[in-house]
């Protein structure tokens, strides 16, 4: 095994000295400023068939309740993300809200078979990419935003970044302590494989 690694790297190193490296300037300015940013974000998300709902903090929970009432999921689940809990309080409809089991084997079955809707929290939104950044941790399992048919994602307007570049360079993005999984989401799943 280690022999393979040594062979491998040796073959590369033999010719590496010959290659010149070209350092390019790293400073890049985004074309998007804060004013046009939200417009771009909205347009891109809607182009990707995401549904956008703008709300103030006070009416957030109420707004979600209205949506849940319309969609009537058999069961729905809310992420335990601390900021999301703070924002929603205890105001969400309780009757069809459920909790995930303690083991992944059982929780997986719930997500695939019973839970039709999930509510998650995005750390930031990126205008240029038209995407939301979600981080996985013990409070917000990565599959929550993935397996249920419908996914509600809450993002705060104060966490909108012009682009991925600036988000990556910000304090939001601690490269020394990355979550096991992060995902950028720009809309619902789609395929062009059958035409």
């Amino acid at each position: 095994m280690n022999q393979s690694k040594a062979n491998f790297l040796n073959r590369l190193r033999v010719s590496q000295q010959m290659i010149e490296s070209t350092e390019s300037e790293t400073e890049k300015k985004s074309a998007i400023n804060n004013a046009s940013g939200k417009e771009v974000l909205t347009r891109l998300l809607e182009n990707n068939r995401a549904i956008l709902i703008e709300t103030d903090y006070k009416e957030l929970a109420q707004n979600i309740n209205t949506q849940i009432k319309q969609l009537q999921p058999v069961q729905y689940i809310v992420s335990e993300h601390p900021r999301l809990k703070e924002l929603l309080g205890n105001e969400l409809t309780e009757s069809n809200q459920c909790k995930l089991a303690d083991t992944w084997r059982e929780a997986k079955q719930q997500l695939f078979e019973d839970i039709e809707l999930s509510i998650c929290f995005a750390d930031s939104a990126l205008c240029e990419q038209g995407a939301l950044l979600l981080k996985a941790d013990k409070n917000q399992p990565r599959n929550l935003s993935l397996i249920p048919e419908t996914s509600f994602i809450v993002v705060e307007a104060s966490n909108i970044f012009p682009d991925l570049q600036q988000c990556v360079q910000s304090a939001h993005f601690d490269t020394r302590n990355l979550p096991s999984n992060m995902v950028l989401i720009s809309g619902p799943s789609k395929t062009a494989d059958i035409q």
Partner: protein
Amino acid sequence: MSDNFRIRTVDALSDDSLQNNFRGAMDFLQDKRHQAFQDLEFEKLRSEGADIRKNVIAHLPDLLEKLERKCIDNGIHVHWAEDAQQACRIVERIAKDNEVKQVVKGKSMVSEEIELNQHLEAQGIECIETDMGEYIVQLDHEKSSHIIMPAIHKTKEQIAQLFADKLNEDFGKPPKDATVDELIGVGRKVLRQKFMQADMGISGVNFAIAETGTLCLVANEGNGRISTGVPDIHVALIGLEKVIPSFAELPTLLKLLTRSATGQIMTTYLNMISSPRKDQELDGPSQVHLVIIDNKRSAMYQDDVLQETLTCIRCGACMNHYPVYTRIGGHAYGSTYPGPIEQIVTPQIEGIEHAGDLLDACSLNGACGEACPVSIDLPVVIRELRNKQTSLKPPHRVIWNIWRQFYRSTKRHALLSKFVSLCSRLPMPTPKAWSNTRTFPKPAPESFSTLIKKQKENERESE
């Protein structure tokens, strides 16, 4: 592999439905890509992308070691595979050690390159493709015809028939005139069941970030995230060239990749995996393995010209813009990476002596080089490979020398064209294999050089 390229090409050219599907899809992709780049300065972005990729090549061994170190720190197991067989055996051993029965696979070109499915199947491990297009071609025991849209050669009627023939009735038989959404619905039902049962997921990687040990994957369907996030074991396969230094380089390459591949500003998902499930986390794989694959890439690295092949980000723009590919489709090539990139990758992986007629398919029109988002000079690389191939074949050399005698002198060339045009006026049988799909060109009444001569004389007279 490529020995029958000529025969397959003729077959493809006489298949009208294939031609229509491909032409339509490629026009669509070319157009979408063009629109997606309108908001950006393509040339500037492209040179940034090319610089990033060239820097990676310059620091490749160090970056790979850094990537390994960071991954191990994060709890990811790292394996090094020198060739296809070793890579397959590594995956097989991980599967066997963990008593894996069902594998789900996200889209991965390198897994096709090493023929992993076939290897695992021979070991009694079922390996299901979960990308909708890949699933369709797997169900029909075919190879994909396009790296981004694997089932593009099939119409929806053909797919409805395939589902009706091959799938268990529990999933509902699609009618002959099923809509695209109905078909996708059927496919999803089958795949969701497989996802529930699978104990191992296999995926490719688009960019592996050395600084943080993060594996980045782009996808439009949820299957990529499911394959890497639902089963207990995740095995990621990566060609050694896919490493990048840090997150700082990601945005530029991502912009170029999604726009070039499908004309999208951004794919539905960018999945970034840095470690297995952490303490107290409910989901995510408990084991993540990264298999770094050489498979002749280090040999490409040792050649100054061919080395550029390694800067490829596998977007597929070169094939979407390549006149030959848009007409014959991916199957004629008979290997993993079709189109111009295939012409340079396959001969280098399988050996130039096996490349056969592949390199001759290029018309040196240069469209692929213009489309490449990281400025790979594909025509130059193809020419270099042709040179290498020709030097192996003595008859080519003789023919080339004769050709040169006629083309280096104007007089001899004029003599030759006169002779050829005379011959073509004689009643002669036209070669059938050639004229089946083409009309035989008529020689111009006057040769180009005569026309120029005349024009010069006219000019002189008018002065």
